[in-house]
């Protein structure tokens, strides 16, 4: 027993030492340089989402060099401290708490999947801490009133499909929700650079209305937040365009065989097939559509999977002439977009895509806000972010409030098409690099 109590005390004291003496990264001993300004970036660097986390991290680093070459933050270098969320909310929260308390960062950036971003947003809300989201796309992240009791009531009301005077009721409830969220709104410092998922497919609407003019559609989506929300918003698009949705179906990620469902689609013979999927499900869907001889007027991807280089490598000619919504493309005539794309390819010997662009742009937004902030207190940084009005490779950035959203950057989305193995901007027409190919002779394309 004596021995074991000795061991207990040893273990306990060991734990306490770890807890109390763990080093404080922010106090770096270097003296000849001015102290850096620390910003914490939370990203999934391991786990399921690591691929995109990595692209974002590399883009952050690429942008950081530029920022510091331009003189950093008013003479002080900017330092990004990366923390791995492993794609899990509780760990993501550990990472955020650590960055704030241990590394004493002045603000947070990053945030990949919605669940992790939401968990980190919780930390940011509690502390009134500035957090610039650049990927997490769940609408609720920039809708602080949506979580209040009245906000939830509005949500239910909208879902209930009761048409009679719900607008006045909603207006009433919105006011109430704002009051309920007042204490939060006053210190709400979460900003989002990327559009929310419900707006991803907006760009495609005009393309469909003006070019394809479909009568019927089938929607297939992955059973994830991205997939379901993307599909739901496209369904609304269809309703606006008067397109009849013959079938809307979701599936679990990682299915081997889509043929049964695709055969069903073939039976229904829709004008367009809209798919909201990640990269390899996307390529399987296209490959198996080709195998089945499923030839609608147009295949439309809801972003994500359909715009990645891997999609074309895996799907091959089955990917040809497929169009997709996208948030960004290197050929968009925003200053620096192409330059970033080339730099990334040169430096890392691989292609980047819109996630990377979001991260790259976010770095400049962070730097810009910090340069303008009177001090590095959360309130001042928040004010600086609120006044953001700048051009980035991801488009103009300005955080506005509309609908239930606050601090949301509003951006158009674009349409791209795989033409001869290259992802090409085709819509809006004034930005198009090349004219779209429509109608498509599918059997010819897939020879």
């Amino acid at each position, binding site marked *: 027993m004596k021995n074991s109590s000795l061991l207990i005390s040893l273990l306990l004291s060991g734990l306490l030492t770890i807890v109390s003496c763990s080093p404080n990264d922010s106090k770096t001993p270097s003296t000849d340089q001015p102290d850096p300004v620390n910003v914490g970036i939370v990203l999934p660097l391991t786990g399921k989402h690591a691929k995109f986390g990595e692209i974002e991290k590399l883009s952050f680093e690429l942008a950081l060099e530029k920022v510091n070459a331009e003189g950093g933050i008013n003479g002080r270098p900017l330092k990004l401290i990366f923390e791995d969320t492993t794609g899990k909310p509780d760990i993501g929260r550990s990472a955020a*708490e650590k960055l704030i308390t241990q590394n004493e960062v002045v603000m947070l950036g990053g945030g990949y999947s919605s669940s992790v971003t939401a968990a980190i947003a919780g930390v940011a809300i509690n502390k009134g801490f500035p957090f610039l989201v650049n990927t997490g796309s769940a609408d609720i992240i920039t809708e602080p009133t949506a979580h209040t009791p009245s906000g939830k009531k509005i949500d239910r009301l909208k879902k209930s499909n009761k048409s009679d005077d719900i607008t006045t009721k909603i207006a009433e409830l919105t006011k109430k929700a704002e009051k309920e969220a007042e204490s939060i709104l006053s210190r709400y410092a979460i900003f989002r650079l990327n559009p929310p998922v419900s707006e991803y497919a907006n760009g495609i609407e005009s393309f469909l209305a003006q070019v394809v003019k479909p009568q019927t559609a089938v929607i297939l989506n992955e059973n994830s937040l991205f997939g379901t929300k993307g599909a739901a918003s496209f369904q609304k698009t269809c309703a606006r365009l008067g397109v009849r949705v013959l079938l809307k179906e979701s599936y679990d990620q990682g299915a081997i065989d889509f043929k049964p469902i695709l055969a069903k689609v073939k039976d229904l013979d829709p004008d367009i097939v809209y798919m909201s999927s990640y990269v390899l499900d996307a390529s399987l869907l296209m490959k198996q559509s080709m195998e089945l001889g499923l030839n609608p007027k147009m295949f439309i991807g809801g972003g994500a999977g359909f715009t990645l280089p891997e999609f074309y490598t895996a799907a091959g000619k089955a990917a040809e002439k497929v169009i997709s919504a996208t948030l960004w493309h290197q050929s968009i005539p925003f200053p620096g977009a192409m330059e970033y794309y080339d730099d990334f390819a040169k430096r890392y010997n691989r292609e980047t895509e819109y996630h990377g662009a979001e991260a790259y742009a976010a770095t400049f937004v962070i730097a810009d806000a910090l340069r303008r902030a009177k001090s590095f207190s959360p309130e001042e940084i928040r004010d600086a972010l609120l006044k953001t009005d700048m051009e980035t490779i991801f488009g103009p950035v300005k955080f506005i409030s509309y609908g239930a959203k606050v601090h949301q950057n509003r951006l158009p989305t674009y349409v791209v098409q795989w033409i001869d193995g290259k992802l090409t901007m085709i819509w809006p027409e004034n930005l198009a690099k090349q004219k779209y190919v429509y109608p498509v002779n599918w059997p010819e394309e897939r020879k």
Partner: protein
Amino acid sequence: MKKHTFGIVIAGILAVAPLLIDNDYYLHLMILALMWVVIGSAWNLLAGYTGQVSFGDAAFFGTGAYTAGLLHDHLGWSPWWGLLFGPITAIMVAVPFGWICFRLRGAYFALATLALNEVMRHTATIMDGFTSGMAGVMILQSFTSKIPYYYIALALAILSVVCVMAVMGHRSGYYFLSIREDQDAAESLGIDTHFYKMISLAIAAGLTGVAGALYMNYMGFIDPEVVFSLHDISIMAILVGIVGGVGTIYGPAIGAFVMVLAQELFRTGGFGVITSLAESTGNASMITIANNMTQAHTLGFGILVVLVIRFMPNGIAGDWEMLVKAVTKKR
């Protein structure tokens, strides 16, 4: 009594801990660890003491979490009611499941729980009109400070350990053990093994449901992949139990702290010790090593799990004497 002194001392230390360490990061880790104490103790009651290994604790955890979140979403109630109703719904899931599946023994039962876990996850995803599906449930946290959450988590952790202790000192405790040791013998001694397995499952599900409700309140956001996660909840619960010591009162509690701290230690490269060492020396190769270390943290964690099971199969509490010997011998 000796055993209790250990528990009381630890509880005492934990009760005053927030006064000593006023740091949100450490408090956050402690809250997570305390939550795992609840889940680990529950798993241990069912698996360690009753011998019915569950691979599906997330089914109950998620049910508890969703109860808290949906009460708020649909009825506008405070999510704290989840602490009361979470366990009730979790038990409502557990009892019919147990009634049907407890005719299965050993590994087959474990597989059935695994299936339950997956069924619950899919259900929560598919019923998106009710659960909001993958969009998840988000609530605003009630407190901006961590202290209230800490004490609530601590209270629940102590409650669960005391609850397991009380049950094990009672008639059902003896029955649970006898079921674990030999179900036929137990049956021949007049024990309704099916019934008592259900009791054990119900208590475990209830406790796990409480932990789920706590998670909802504390984290503020849940979705099916998070709270019904086979890997992050169900398997983690087992690891907490195994590492700490199966079939011991304090084992799961020890396991919870060790696992949460170890995970964080690996993730941050020893709370940043290695990175800062590398940076202070400015040695390029050191920095690469540090980067690789943090890259490989999940691997390190996996290796730790393999080593613990290989060399300490009874866990820290179970192999305590062996540990003590190993340490004292070296002196």
